[in-house]
């Protein structure tokens, strides 16, 4: 089975599971009831500013009990601004009253590559801030697709046995330390509904330690936009490549770690470090992340005539 979204540890673990299953040592997961304590609520910041024209959104909400079944509570009545390092101030307003604070001009974008951005949130007597920066992003050179037949028929909702592996080609900039978030685009919209699908790159590979500066993204990353099912003829598919800071890279890595932390090689569960700080060091800490990125995008429609032949 070709699992595309890999980093060394998860690959290792997935292989382990398959192998254990063969000899009957298959582990099993059961959903169980668990009682946990509940801590005080905290402010959650979820938003990105980008160099794309159109509406930019910063969502503010409250954390709840971990197993709380009530809808998530929005943070209402906050004053939200983003300032860049040359003095522009952008006011974000919650016009719909649902905690989604937006700024937008159809003709212009907020973000510029190379600029630094500061988010400021005032809520009642508390002030929260976060900084970020828009890094350079390479353009996407092409999208290609290859015929593929899976060795076994996939589960019902995992697509068909035959189809196409779609991959994109782009080259990392020379100079170590560029980090990216690769997002699959399906029918014109990004499709990253599960944390385990998050595909991030450090230079052209998975981590700071891998030697990949300036290369074309390595194959597992190129193919990370084909996640758990094959594409079919006529699929409207594409990729978005977001430049992110190293800090955002590690934040996302922790999101993935926390969301895929099963098995015998689980790491100790730890809180994901937010970049939002409370001006009062003794005040409640905030959760979430305020990001900034530049985006490259390319889309295509899968045409069997242009597909590469199946690899052996």
């Amino acid at each position, binding site marked *: 089975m070709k699992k595309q979204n890999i980093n060394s540890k998860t690959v290792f673990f997935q292989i382990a599971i398959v192998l254990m299953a063969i000899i009957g040592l298959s582990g*099993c997961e059961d959903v169980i009831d*668990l009682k946990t304590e509940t801590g005080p609520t905290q402010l959650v910041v979820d938003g990105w500013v980008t160099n794309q024209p159109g509406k930019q959104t910063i969502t503010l909400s409250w954390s709840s009990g971990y197993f709380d079944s009530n809808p998530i509570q929005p943070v209402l009545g906050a004053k939200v601004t983003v300032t860049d390092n040359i003095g522009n101030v952008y006011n974000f307003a919650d016009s719909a009253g649902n905690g989604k604070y937006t700024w937008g001009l159809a003709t212009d974008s907020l973000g510029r590559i190379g600029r630094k951005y500061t988010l400021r949130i005032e809520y009642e007597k508390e002030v929260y801030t976060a900084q970020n920066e828009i890094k350079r992003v390479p353009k996407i050179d092409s999208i290609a697709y290859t015929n593929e037949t899976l060795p076994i028929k996939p589960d019902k909702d995992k697509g068909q046995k035959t189809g196409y592996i779609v991959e994109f080609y782009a080259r990392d900039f020379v100079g170590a330390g560029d980090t990216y978030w690769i997002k699959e685009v399906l029918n014109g919209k990004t499709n990253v509904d599960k944390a385990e699908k998050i595909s991030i790159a450090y230079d052209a590979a998975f*981590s700071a330690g891998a030697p990949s500066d300036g290369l074309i993204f*390595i194959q597992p990353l190129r193919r990370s936009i084909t996640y758990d099912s094959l594409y079919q003829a006529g699929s409207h598919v594409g990729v978005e490549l977001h430049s992110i800071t190293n800090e955002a890279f590690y934040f996302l890595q922790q999101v993935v770690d926390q969301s895929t932390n099963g098995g015998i090689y689980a790491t100790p569960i730890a809180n994901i470090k937010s970049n939002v700080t409370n001006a009062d060091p003794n005040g409640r800490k905030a959760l979430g992340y305020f990001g900034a990125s530049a985006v490259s995008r390319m889309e295509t429609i899968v045409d069997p005539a242009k597909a590469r032949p199946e690899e052996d």
Partner: protein
Amino acid sequence: MNRLRINHQNISMKSKIQKKWIGLLLSFFSIASFAQTKHTVSGYVKDIANGEGLIGVSVYVREAQTGVVTNPYGFYSLTLPAGTYTVVYSYIGYQKNTKTIELNADQTVSIELADESENLKEVTISTKKDDENVRSIEMSVNKVEMKTIRKMPALLGEVDLIRSIQLLPGVTTVGEGASGFNVRGGDISQNLVLLDEAPVFNSSHLFGFFSVFNPDVVKDVKLFKGGIPAQYGGRISSILDVRMKEGNSKKREINGGIGSIFSRLTYEQPFAAGKGSFIVAARRSYIDILAKPFLNKDLKDSKFNFYDLTAKVNYRLGNKDTFFASGYLGKDVFGGGDFGFGWGNKTLTGRWNHIFSNKLFMNMTAYYSNYDYNLGQNENDKNAKDRFVWNSRIVTKSIKPDFTYYITPNNQLTFGGQYINYDSSPGKATAVSEGEGLNLDLPSRHADESAIYIANEQKLTDKISLQYGIRYSYFRSLGAGIEYSYRDTTAGIRKQPIFPGKEYQSGDVIKTYGNFEPRFAVNIGLNSVSSLKISYNRMSQYLHLLSNTAASSPLDVWTLSSSNIKPELADQVALGWFRNFKDNMYEASVEVYYKKLHNQLDYVVGSDLLLNQFVEGDLLTGRGRAYGAEFYLKKNKGRLTGWVSYTLSKTERQVEGVNNGNWFNARFDKPHNFTTVAIYELNKRLTLSSNFTITSGTPATFPTNGYTWGGYSLGNNYNNARNNNRIPAYHRLDLAATLKARKKLFGIGEGEWVFSIYNVYNRRNAFSVYTRQNEDKPTASEKAQNLLRTQAVRYSVIGSLIPSITYNFKF
């Protein structure tokens, strides 16, 4: 000389009382012999069936009420005043042998003992008790006979040394399938696992399910949990000393078996008219061969096997010299499609036993040990457009002379040293993307470790014996290399290196550490069947396993001490009460221990321990403490044998930057740990056995709050706590039956069937409990309502009962 004469005169002039005092003093330091003529009887004790030297045989002199035990090569030496003595050689599971020795000159007496089972019905009546566990100074030591290990129920019928060790008091594991074992609050890397004196860095096959020791070649297993003698060093928590068979020196022998996982074959043969013998053993998993016809296309290239090869040869040259060479090669190979993964250990040991006089025994060991792994895509296809290759290795080479000087039965002096050279290549990687490639070699690390030790085991009086010694270890981190220092930051956050690092040339000494490691033990006999023992030891460790996962993975890298990584140290005190019942049919012990661990490693959140040149910036240092009480009752004789063990313990760590700097439970902390092992010999053909284990669940961390970010449901612990919860208790029953075949195999050999069931009552024991985003697709209303979608999951490594059948044969 003059002075001595004066002393003599003095002594003769002094009153009787003074004489008595000085006599006592002299006996205290009775290195020199008295005026009385003394002679030495020495020799080897071997197994009559195959000529294997027997380790730890009690050699007891009835008239002198004293004795010694045989060393790891089966050698013993006793120096006594001239006279006639009755010497009793006894060993658990073997028939006793009594010799009358006319000691009027130095002499060699080698003895062969016969297996007890040869003669099961006969009740051996002994006049003197073979209560070695009560009389010996050793405490916190567990010895499990291979005979017992073979009869215990085993997962998939594969007899497994490490899994058997896990059933002993004071020993735990983080869970099924986890590699290694934890001893008295130490992590798995703090056990020195020795195979014929060479360290084994990864004791597992198939991640952690099976151990690398082929049961057919293991002669003796001993686990030191405390009171560790001065001759051992290098790890702070325990020593697992595994000795390989030497090979049958009497006749050719073939052993083998077909199990669910491995097929095994062992061949032993004497040569040079019994002066030498060798043993060669191989095991291989064969599930991949069986599965092959059922795999199609991509899966056809699946690689899935593990094997090991063990060999040993020995040759006796005259009466004073014996040479041994032994080697181990083990490998796990996995892969599918163009992806491959493998790891393995290699060890090679050469040994020379020399008897200088019948009082001075020397063993000189030289070994080479290598652990490596490789992982990658299209590893062997150098022309592939897309490739990734990654490997890591650690090599150690060592020379180790050990001497035992059998001064008198009451003083046994051991001394020696060790030199170890370390060569570690933490990671080398090559990435090729669309034909363009790059290499990354993490700088290799070099170091050496030297140690010297001296210790004496002394019988002070009939009731009190002592063992005292000291070991000094000295570690040097060596060039070539670049040593970075790291910027201080908030505890718990990655430290950034300060550039430029300091460059060292080959041969430069980067950093040194030296440690005195005192060792002490005392045995106070309370009466003929019980004793009290106390011990203290300090241990140091210069080699550290970087592992931040629940179970250690084969990818974990061993790293050496440096300017940034201080040696790990441990101090342990233990107190024990030992008593035997019913003519040594039962042995019982209660031990309490307290252990302090220094310079323990932990990791920053989101630590990156692989292929990271600046990995030292991701390390945190803290301390640990562990304490507990171990209760142990073992039945050695009769049709029913086995043991019951209960351990009550606590293991904690304190690390700045974790759990707000407060003490937290170590991930292998299991306060209650109860096990029983029972083996019942129903008749000559059928043996039944069972294991039962119940332990506390391992610690876990759960979120107190949930939130959504980017559409993902995430968790957060408001108190930033670690391991403040616990998963449900673990319990399991295993059963096995061993049935000897009635008919001779091909008219000459013996065959037996082993039926076993692991996890008899089909319990899904939790390996871990964790929380995650609900895996189901959200419903439309869930989406509209913006709900937190979370769930708790219990992960079980073994989800059902596992039956198995194994066939073993012997010619």
